[in-house]
């Protein structure tokens, strides 16, 4: 079962309008821990403290500032911030279409399933759009305002359905250049054997194969502790890093092992 409708809007470009309903696509269930004070097991809470006075600061003494230069802030009050919120609208405006392969996956944020809204004549327009996007292998780059925020996203077709994937803004993605990676020369032989090894280890993507066994093991450990049993402390496995001057030999041994 899909999640509940979270928002309704209409996809618009040219003279096309397709009314849709957004649904969440993912539901996470996780074991939730709390942070406690070790000595008396009192549950801790997060508190904003003044970095200068080292004292807790109540909400009414907090303001929002934008750092214009080191340690200097422009204070903005909530009413002013509200004025910058986007006007509410129901339009998902498609600005352009791009080949799906061009979208760098690092930009992909949250995905929503789109359900045809009944206003659309039995979903005819919806289905026509699905087919058109698939035949052209494109995604629609669009913007819309939802819950006082502007979103930027990619409208995509998969099987019989449309989906809206929110995209991250370009200034949110950290460029590889800032990681200061070194360029290390590699021999053609190392690259060739490395590539062969990867091809040998190639497999189809079968997500069903990977269950969250860890969650079950963690649950069992919690139950064991609750019964007062002792937990064996296991040392994390640490692999010895491959030495640079042995990389070729290790690759060759790996390839032999994979064969």
């Amino acid at each position, binding site marked *: 079962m899909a999640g509940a409708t979270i928002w309704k809007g209409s996809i618009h470009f040219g003279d096309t309008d397709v009314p849709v309903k957004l649904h969440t696509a993912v539901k996470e269930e996780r*074991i939730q821990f709390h942070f406690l004070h070790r000595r008396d097991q009192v549950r801790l809470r997060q508190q904003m403290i003044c970095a200068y006075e080292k004292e807790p600061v109540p909400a009414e003494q907090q303001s929002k500032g934008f750092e214009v230069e080191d340690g200097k802030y422009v204070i903005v009050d909530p009413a002013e911030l509200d004025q910058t919120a986007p006007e509410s609208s129901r339009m998902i405006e498609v600005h352009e279409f791009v080949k799906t392969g061009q979208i760098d996956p690092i930009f992909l944020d949250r995905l929503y399933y789109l359900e045809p809204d009944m206003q659309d004549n039995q979903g005819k327009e919806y289905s026509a759009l699905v087919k058109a996007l698939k035949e052209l292998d494109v995604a629609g780059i669009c913007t819309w305002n939802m819950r006082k925020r502007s979103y930027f996203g990619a409208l995509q077709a998969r099987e019989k359905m449309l989906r809206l994937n929110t995209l991250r803004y370009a200034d949110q993605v950290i460029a590889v250049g800032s990681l200061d990676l070194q360029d290390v020369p590699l021999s053609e032989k190392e690259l060739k054997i490395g590539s062969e090894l990867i091809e040998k280890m190639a497999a189809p993507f079968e997500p069903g194969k990977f*269950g969250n066994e860890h969650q079950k093991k963690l649950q069992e450990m919690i139950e064991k502790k609750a019964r007062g049993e002792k937990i064996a402390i296991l040392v994390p496995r640490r692999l010895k890093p491959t030495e640079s001057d042995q990389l070729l030999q290790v690759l060759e041994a790996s390839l032999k092992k994979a064969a």
Partner: protein
Amino acid sequence: MAVQGIWSGTISFSLVAIPVRLVKAIEPGRISFRLLHSKDYSPLARRMFCPEEETMVPRDEIIRGYEIVPNQYVLMTDEELESVSPERSRTIEIVDFIDMKEVDPVYYDHPYYLVPSKGGEKAYRLLVEVMRRTNKAGLAKFVLAEREYLVAVTSRDGALALTTLHYSEEILADEDLSPKKGKTAAEEQNRMKKSIERMIENFDPGKYADKRRKKLTDLLATKAKEKAPVEAPVVEQEEGAGPADLVAALEESMRKVKPR
């Protein structure tokens, strides 16, 4: 200055092991605000606070607890957490190399980068380059704090990117949302295709600045002209302060167990 790591360990494929650190790939963006104390304009920091003693609690006095019945907790130390899956808490072992095209984007969760630690530069470069050449991504599982993640490691602009993936049991079904069997008019579809074809461009995320950000930048510029910016008092960096927030707390506790 090296980037601060969230996690450190090794990434391996077959017999090759590369020491790496996990670093963030996403940041808040240009316009983000800080919370300040209205009285002295000092920035605020998020700390763990004991409501009974009304004091800030340093990180070595914090422990995780699982609430079994209201107000009763099972305590878990970092060492115990690492013992749940000791083979995966310090190693990202690539088990398969896959074609990312087969991965439905609904699986994508959050991207990070891996950067090589000392001595791992050459093998790191090799993995980046061979995954680029073969157009493959490494599939692995690893554990960070209390969670185990299914991850895809890809080659991106000369770096290893690591994207956490959702488990298939977390993906909701969409069948009940699909359009009821209705015929699509070929005419309608052709009209749409023509309209789409006229609008095909190259992907350029840089041109989509958040509309709100433009308004914010204008507002900030006006305000900065009207009134000089306020200045925060200088605070000397304290050592051993409590964790900045919950995520940082998790990261801190993971960092305490340093690699040899």
